[in-house]
């Protein structure tokens, strides 16, 4: 049913037939998807659905990066892992889930933390990056490395019952993470799932939405969420799309006279800049709400 001049083999045509049937997607979009490469930094709550849906849809090369190992308290939201794989590498566990789902794609595993030293060489190998990390220093590093290497960045976050999603460093004048947040928040304002808690399905929803943005970028279909942020309030069930600024002329990463470059980024001290280690955040001030006022 398809013309001879396309790059999909018969397994791919069968596997992706529901995409090929789709008027608004079709053969060319699927071919682009099958030849794209995507790096997922963080195989946790966001990375789980993002990896599953990107593996399923046929991204050519999927990179899974995480230095951590699976803990039982992860399994309420990190659905790519299993009880059997508790204690093993999250990146390897993610690979097993994605391989079982789709052996037609190539999966690469990076079992290390993203550091300024290695960021450019790893991110340079992919067409785009998904920030599924869980801490401020890593978020700044990923954004800076994407700007320096010229890669679009699909960034999501979830804490408690709130979620956020946007695409950085995309299009003519799309902003980067530093354009929005030139100064990092103080460590006590950076809540983490492990401290503040998170309703497990919230990163599930946000990570699936990240996969969608990656698919749109890779396939060239649809309007990418750059210069816009999707803000989700799970308890009220409300999504709000807000309009963001363009690139900031004075941005240290993507501005007119950037101080970050291929040569300076590996030297940049993200720990000193954010006041936080990538590996462990401060406890969140849980005492703020007395239990009598809880929802």
């Amino acid at each position, binding site marked *: 049913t398809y013309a001879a001049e396309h790059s999909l083999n018969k397994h791919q045509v069968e596997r992706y037939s529901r995409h090929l049937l789709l008027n608004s997607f079709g053969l060319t979009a699927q071919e682009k998807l099958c030849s794209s490469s995507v790096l997922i930094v*963080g195989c*946790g*709550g*966001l*990375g789980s659905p993002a990896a599953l849906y990107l593996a399923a849809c046929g991204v050519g090369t999927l990179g899974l990066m995480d230095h951590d190992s699976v803990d039982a308290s992860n399994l309420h939201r990190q659905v790519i892992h299993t009880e059997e794989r508790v204690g093993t590498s999250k990146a390897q566990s993610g690979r097993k889930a994605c391989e079982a789902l789709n052996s037609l794609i190539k999966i690469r595993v990076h079992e290390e933390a993203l550091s300024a030293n290695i960021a450019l060489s790893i991110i340079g190998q992919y067409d785009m990056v998904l*920030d*599924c*990390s*869980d*801490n*401020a220093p890593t*978020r700044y590093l990923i954004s800076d490395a994407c700007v320096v290497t010229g890669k679009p960045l699909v960034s*999501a*976050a*979830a*804490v*408690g019952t*709130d*979620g*956020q999603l946007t695409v950085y460093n995309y299009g003519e004048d799309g902003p980067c993470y530093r354009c*929005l*947040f*030139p*100064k*990092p*928040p*103080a460590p*006590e*304002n*950076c*809540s*983490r*799932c492990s401290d*503040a808690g*998170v309703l497990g399905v919230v*990163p599930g929803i946000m*990570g699936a939405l990240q996969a969608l943005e990656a698919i749109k970028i890779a396939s060239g279909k649809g309007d990418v969420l750059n210069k816009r*942020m999707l*803000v989700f*309030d799970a308890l*009220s069930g409300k999504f*709000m*799309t*807000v*309009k*963001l*600024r363009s690139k*900031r002329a004075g941005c240290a990463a993507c501005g007119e006279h950037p101080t970050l470059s291929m040569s300076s980024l590996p030297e940049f001290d993200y720990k000193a800049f954010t006041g936080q280690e990538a590996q462990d*955040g401060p406890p969140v*001030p849980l005492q*703020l*709400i007395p239990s009598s*006022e*809880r*929802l």
Partner: protein
Amino acid sequence: MKLTVEFSGGLELLFGGKKNIALDVIFKNKAVMSELLVWMRDNLVTERPDLFMKSETVRPGILVLINEADWELCGTLDAELKEGDNVVFISTLHGG
């Protein structure tokens, strides 16, 4: 001037847990964001004002939206407010 303010990403914890508040603000000089922030700090914050403002503006890590658009698009602290405007304060999240 009647305004609505909304909080997201945990900032509601500084405002008695409320995600939406309807305000009636009397501005001393001009109806601009800089005055609204000070008014909110003095009249609305229930906990830790230092987690809302730092020197004259919001603390780093807070995104401010006026009628669903980044306040950078309308002058940040000098952005003028008018009756019925909606101002949203979003704390950027890092978890995943």
